[in-house]
């Protein structure tokens, strides 16, 4: 009984996702590209770097990279804290 309900819910979600994917805008024409046109036009003058993606990651949107560095730090501390008990048993 419970498996039947889960199956119906999953089919509903799958149909919704596939319907949304087939009725999206055409592939290859972005709708809102004003911010990215500014980035492409001004990277070499303001940031003085040739790579627009690195300039967006570290200069124009550096705050998101700070959040990502925090997540990676939390993951490393979490894994090393979980396996700490064995290291103390080893000594």
């Amino acid at each position, binding site marked *: 009984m419970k498996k039947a309900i889960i199956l119906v819910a999953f089919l509903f979600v799958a149909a919704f996702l596939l319907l949304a994917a087939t009725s999206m805008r055409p592939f290859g024409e972005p709708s809102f590209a004003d911010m990215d046109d500014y980035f492409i036009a001004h990277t070499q003058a303001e*940031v*003085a770097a*040739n*790579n627009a993606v690195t*300039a967006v990651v*570290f200069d124009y949107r550096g705050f998101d990279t700070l959040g990502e560095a925090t997540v990676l*730090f939390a993951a490393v501390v979490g894994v*090393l804290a979980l*396996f700490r008990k064995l290291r103390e048993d080893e000594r």
Partner: protein
Amino acid sequence: MNTGMSVIVRTITRLVYGPALVFGFYVIMHGHLTPGGGFQGGAVVASAFALLLVAFGAAGVKGHLNAHLLQTLEEIGALAFLALGFVGIGTAFFYNLLANSGPLFGGPVVPLGSNSGVFNAGGTLPLMNWAVGLKVMTGITAIVIAMLVGARKEESE
């Protein structure tokens, strides 16, 4: 997990490990000129370390790589990235103060359009690439070593 793999795998690992490290550092260093940067190059170096761990087993690497030293280096990388964000705090947080000014990565003006790349330019971008590359490299290696040694201790009980 203790013993590692056969003689063929160990010989090829000894040959491949050096060039893989050099390629990883190249991808980190030239992040502002070619596709790549801190995260991608750090993942390449971490996969070279993981290859070493798989080929020689946990017993062969035990004396050389220490998980706590790697965790300390990762914290130093995170603090360096945060300190580089405070360099241009007079105007804004994460302001690129060193671009187009002075000899330290501010050098000649980058010509517009398609060119062959200027290494001594980019402001705080190459410095942030090194900080993040160190962080990702040591962080992923610390995770892999902690999991491998943890699983080994469970089998020997």
